[in-house]
């Protein structure tokens, strides 16, 4: 992963990895695009089948390899394509979020959001907010792999 936007003259640009569920949030991102809404290019979207598919190691690996913030986005509770994936995801990700905070991560670094496929505007807005929050927080060095280098 690279922070290709890291412009040395204007300062710090964070790298945000967004895991988006195939059925709602990824489609929400699509809608934001086709509606010509703009959101920060700091966000890298990774498509997952469902937020219930999230393996906590995905999140930790992202932090190891350069992410300053990680966002998981899934369908609103009750709207899961697989009926119950996001209900299970909600429990698991809640426990996991508290655990990474316990290990010393700032709460803003790892977030979970519900974004439906019709909420292109919400998708753009959440990405905007997340980027602003991480920008204010500064770069993440916690759990960064010692061998990782920013490719700018």
């Amino acid at each position, binding site marked *: 992963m690279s922070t290709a936007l890291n412009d040395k003259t204007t300062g710090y640009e964070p790298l945000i990895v967004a895991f988006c569920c195939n059925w709602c949030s990824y489609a929400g991102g699509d809608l934001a695009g086709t509606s010509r809404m703009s959101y920060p290019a700091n966000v890298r979207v990774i498509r997952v089948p469902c937020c219930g598919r999230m393996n906590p190691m995905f999140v*930790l690996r992202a932090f190891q390899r350069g992410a300053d913030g990680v966002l998981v986005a899934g369908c609103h509770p009750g709207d899961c394509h697989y009926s119950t994936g996001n209900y299970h995801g909600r429990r698991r990700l809640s426990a996991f979020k508290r*655990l990474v905070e316990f290990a*010393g991560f700032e709460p803003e670094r790892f977030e979970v959001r519900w974004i439906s496929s019709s909420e292109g505007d919400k998708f753009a807005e959440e990405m905007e907010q997340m980027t602003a929050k991480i920008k204010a927080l500064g770069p993440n060095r916690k759990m960064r792999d*010692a061998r990782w280098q920013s490719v700018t």
Partner: protein
Amino acid sequence: MAERNLEQLEKIREVVSQDLLSGRIELLLGWEKGHYWWQSRPLFARSKDDLAKLTWDSFCAVNLSRYLLEELKDHQKVGVLVKGCDSRAFNRLLQDNMVERDRVVLYGLPCPGILDYKLLAAEAGPELKGIAEENGKIVLKTASGEVEVKRDQFLMAKCRECLYPDPVVYDQMLLEPQGKKEAPERFKAVDELETLTPEERFAYWEKELSRCLRCYACRQACPYCSCRECFVEQENPRWQGRAYQPSENFLFHLVRAYHGAGRCIDCGECQRACPVDIPLQELNRKLIKDINELYGDYEAGLDAELEPPLLTYRPDDPAAFSEK
């Protein structure tokens, strides 16, 4: 020597030797004395001669249920001596379909708490020769004489906040049960860490985890770590790097603890097995505390029929992130 109660030991030996000789069980998992008087290691008894080595004293810390995973491959029927935590570990394995209930005979032993040699040695000095016990007191025998101390102060960390000293599942209870205990300070260390800032917490864990050798003794001792292939040894994808650096230590410890979310019986075997004293129970207890807070009280291993909280859900569950 450290025999707590020879009468109790005789009673245990009588019952299990009957079963072993009659063929009710092929193998008994118990404890025998190790190289030093303060060590009791697992005993795999197949004959009467083996049973002569059986011991039951204040150092029988090892959780024997874990050994069922291996022993049931070679034996049709296995007997196990279970303390409170061993019995909850058995329930854990039962829930994961790793053992068959009717191939195991459980002999219940209510546990008064295991003693920590390091604490005893710190009190008595290096020339500690042995201990004697009666009525909640320990007599420390040293070259220069005997000192009497209170038993409670020398319990292992894992036993100090034990809620269920009596076995919760057994075929036969061998000794007198002692009832549920209180554990008012179970989450004290977690609460204290939670009051720190993220930076302070990170510094704390970075320091503690920096000692980690990644020997995986914690996993090996753990009754919930029963996967046939553990993520740390998986080659593709290779989640756990081999490099010695904080990043890899954090990955291992967070994921190890997280795999126990809603499943950890809080027996403390991981922390006891750790050669560098990493406070692993604090991570485990953090998850237990949060899951209890968010999804209702649940004690893993108490009842094998109850569904673990992370395998189920309610539509109106709260979430720990800002959006419901």
